[in-house]
């Protein structure tokens, strides 16, 4: 590889005050650093092999299957249980009690005894229990409409209607993928040192990747059962369009607030990547061509993006208009002279909506794998000691940190009802996070610590009566109620993207912004909010299947190929 010319200027990273706003986080798009792409790159690079040692599913679609992913060092196995679920039991809610299929990702190759044990537990999900040999537990439901359409067509010897496929995007959607010790599974610490687990959520996305292969096989099996000799398999180009859906509700929103160091590392990696590309002095013809090609494919992808939610419809309208403007601008713009990406990005910051700005930010990274991809190794939270409070810090020092990072929160009148209208709590019924109306429901006593802005402002007020030289250790002896806020402030001081710089309990909060941010880092596309607090997405849509990972240039799979659409 030729060494790159030294940049004549270095673009700095965008300020946390610009990036960490909910409206912007809620406009994030997948990029090279998304967890699914980190995984598919590794699988292709290391030439993982895949086997299906068991597919034992009967004519009613009941049974089990095992899908193995063989890395250079070890094997991971998806153990899938297929069920015959009555329609009245099919619920998108995380609190459902029965599913069309249930899964565990097993660390190694399961024995018959392991499978028997998992059969007693995995179909029960939360009501069951797994062990340290399991790395994740998940479940999925069919898209009833599309499932029946695809089986009927294949059974009849015909391919499904691509329009129908593209309208939904998936045959099954997961309603939860549990990892990191949930339900008794192995803790992340047990696998964190493995290279393939060094980036975040690699086990969970591997589980979804294998689930997608299972779903394709299951629908073909059911079609064959129904149609016999007349049945045909799914055409590979149609199968490729289908991802795995996911329904995500409020349970995921607090994650961003509960893992400040981790979120900082995700955002900082992407912001570092953006700054590096903005600092590129000259773009080669190939790099410009890659960008232009993927921009055109993005426009196509956004055309296929459907949502019935008023907020997303408006955002999509703006995005489509602005991507056309971007496209026209790029046609005319000079990308052959100094710092082309920085100039383009500065133009976008004044001319384009947030959705289009963030889309461009992700797109600009595409030609620059050599500058970007290694940042994947910096996205996990390895600093377990970060929760320690430095009690020697003085009151004056802490107040300075608060003013630097929470000034926005001190400008809010927290006594105003609309500024604290909401409260996050956990419901007794299903033990899931919910967002309630503080002044209409009896929930304030159960409030979760998910309003860091309000709490930082209260901490700042409490510090005012303390001597500037007093150590925080003494303050905390008298005020343990501020302990979590002191910890956050000290984390943010070292990890500037750790904190969302917006009100997370205001009357106009849109929790889907928090969901969108996290899901974009997973690599999700086709965000389709179903309310202000629930979103459906597609995972691995257009991605290679296990057997296609060695095909050339499989890394740009999130971008649909031009000329293949709706023919």
């Amino acid at each position, binding site marked *: 590889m030729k060494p790159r010319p030294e940049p004549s200027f270095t673009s700095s990273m965008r300020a946390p005050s610009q990036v960490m706003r909910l409206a912007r986080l809620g406009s994030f798009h997948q990029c090279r650093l998304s967890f699914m792409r980190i995984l598919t790159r590794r699988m292709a690079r290391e030439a993982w092999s895949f086997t299906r040692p068991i597919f034992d599913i009967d004519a009613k679609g009941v049974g089990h299957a095992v899908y193995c992913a063989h890395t250079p060092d070890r094997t991971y196995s998806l153990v899938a249980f297929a069920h015959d679920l009555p329609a009245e039991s099919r619920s998108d809610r995380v609190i459902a009690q029965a599913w069309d299929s249930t899964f565990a990702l097993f660390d190694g190759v399961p024995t018959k005894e392991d499978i028997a044990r998992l059969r007693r537990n995995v179909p029960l999900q939360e009501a069951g229990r797994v062990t340290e040999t399991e790395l994740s537990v998940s479940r999925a439901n069919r898209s009833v409409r599309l499932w029946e359409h695809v089986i009927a067509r294949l059974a009849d010897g015909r391919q499904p209607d691509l329009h129908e496929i593209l309208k939904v995007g998936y045959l099954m959607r997961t309603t939860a993928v549990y990892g*990191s010790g949930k339900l*008794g599974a192995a803790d992340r610490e047990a696998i964190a040192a493995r290279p393939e687990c060094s980036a975040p959520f690699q086990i969970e996305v591997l589980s979804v990747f294998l689930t997608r292969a299972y779903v394709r096989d299951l629908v073909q099996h059911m079609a064959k059962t129904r149609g016999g000799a007349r049945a045909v398999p799914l055409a590979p180009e149609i199968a490729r369009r289908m991802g795995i859906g996911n329904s995500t509700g409020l349970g995921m929103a607090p994650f961003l607030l509960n893992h400040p160091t981790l979120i900082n590392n995700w955002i900082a990696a992407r912001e570092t990547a953006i700054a590096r590309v903005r600092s590129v002095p000259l773009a080669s013809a190939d790099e410009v061509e890659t960008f232009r090609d993927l921009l055109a494919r993005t426009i196509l992808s956004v055309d296929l993006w459907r949502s019935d939610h008023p907020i997303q419809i408006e955002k999509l309208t703006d995005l489509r208009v602005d991507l056309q403007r971007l496209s026209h601008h790029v046609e005319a713009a000079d990308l052959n002279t100094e710092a082309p990406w920085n100039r383009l990005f500065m133009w976008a910051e004044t001319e384009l909506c947030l959705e289009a700005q963030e889309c461009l930010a992700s797109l600009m990274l595409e030609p620059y794998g050599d500058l970007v991809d290694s940042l994947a190794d910096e996205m996990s939270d390895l600093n377990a000691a970060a929760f320690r409070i430095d009690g020697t810090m003085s009151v004056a020092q802490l107040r300075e940190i608060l003013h630097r990072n929470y000034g926005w929160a001190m400008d809010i009148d927290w006594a105003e009802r609309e500024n604290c209208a909401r409260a996050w709590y956990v419901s007794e*019924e299903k033990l899931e996070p919910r967002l*309630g109306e503080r002044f209409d429901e009896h929930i304030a006593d159960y409030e979760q610590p998910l309003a860091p802005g309000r709490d930082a402002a209260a901490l700042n007020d409490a510090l005012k009566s303390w001597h500037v030289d007093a150590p925080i*250790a*003494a303050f905390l002896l008298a005020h343990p109620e501020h302990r979590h806020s002191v910890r956050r402030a000290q984390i943010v001081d070292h990890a500037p993207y750790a904190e969302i710089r917006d009100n997370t309990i205001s009357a106009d909060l849109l929790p889907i912004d928090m969901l969108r941010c996290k899901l974009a880092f997973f690599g999700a596309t086709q965000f389709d909010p179903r309310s202000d607090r629930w979103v459906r997405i597609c995972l691995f849509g257009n991605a290679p299947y296990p057997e296609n990972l060695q095909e050339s240039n499989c890394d740009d799979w999130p971008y649909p190929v031009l000329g293949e659409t709706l023919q």
Partner: protein
Amino acid sequence: MTHSLNEIEAQSRKAARGTGLSWGMAEEAAKATRWLESHQLPGVRLLAEVLTRNDGVAHADIAPQTLDAPWTARSGVLCPLASGAALNDCADRLATGHHIEMEDVTSPLLIVPFAAWAALHICSPVRVQWRDIRIETDGYRIWVNDPKAQVGLASKVALTCSRVSEMNENASLPELRGRVCPTGWDILGTFAHRTYAPDTPESRRLGAGAGVSDND
């Protein structure tokens, strides 16, 4: 049956909050419990005992009154969680060779995780000792000298924490699962339950995330 360390931490955090600890204290109580269980020490049982004893008691009654030596509580009995958190906050004192002394602290083993984090911070092993018991940790490994098998007792003791130059070479490493005391686990579950808001038809309608049907 074993538990994952994340399960132990999550249950402990909710339980601590359920008995009235601040969120920040609850977080540290939970990490302390996790740390002990990872060393196959009875974190869950001791946390259940401490939370039961101090259920609803004000922090100011059971925390060190000041950070001047030796530490004592207004009520006469120090809580190991409040004292441990203060110990970790003041870890730099250990680096300079100072001892931290506590009078009448209950369930003293719960102090050890906080001392362990202090050891990580000052990059030196520390020793925690009370009665005949001596424990050394560098934050990661632990060595326990407990000739009378009293390390898990809840009774109150005078305790000293200090820096040491070297760890005992027989120190043991943490494990990745916890074998928790079932009774203690159930007690934590009862306390944790207090953090859940009772459901009402209104909360079901307003608060939940998704729709009910998935038949589309």
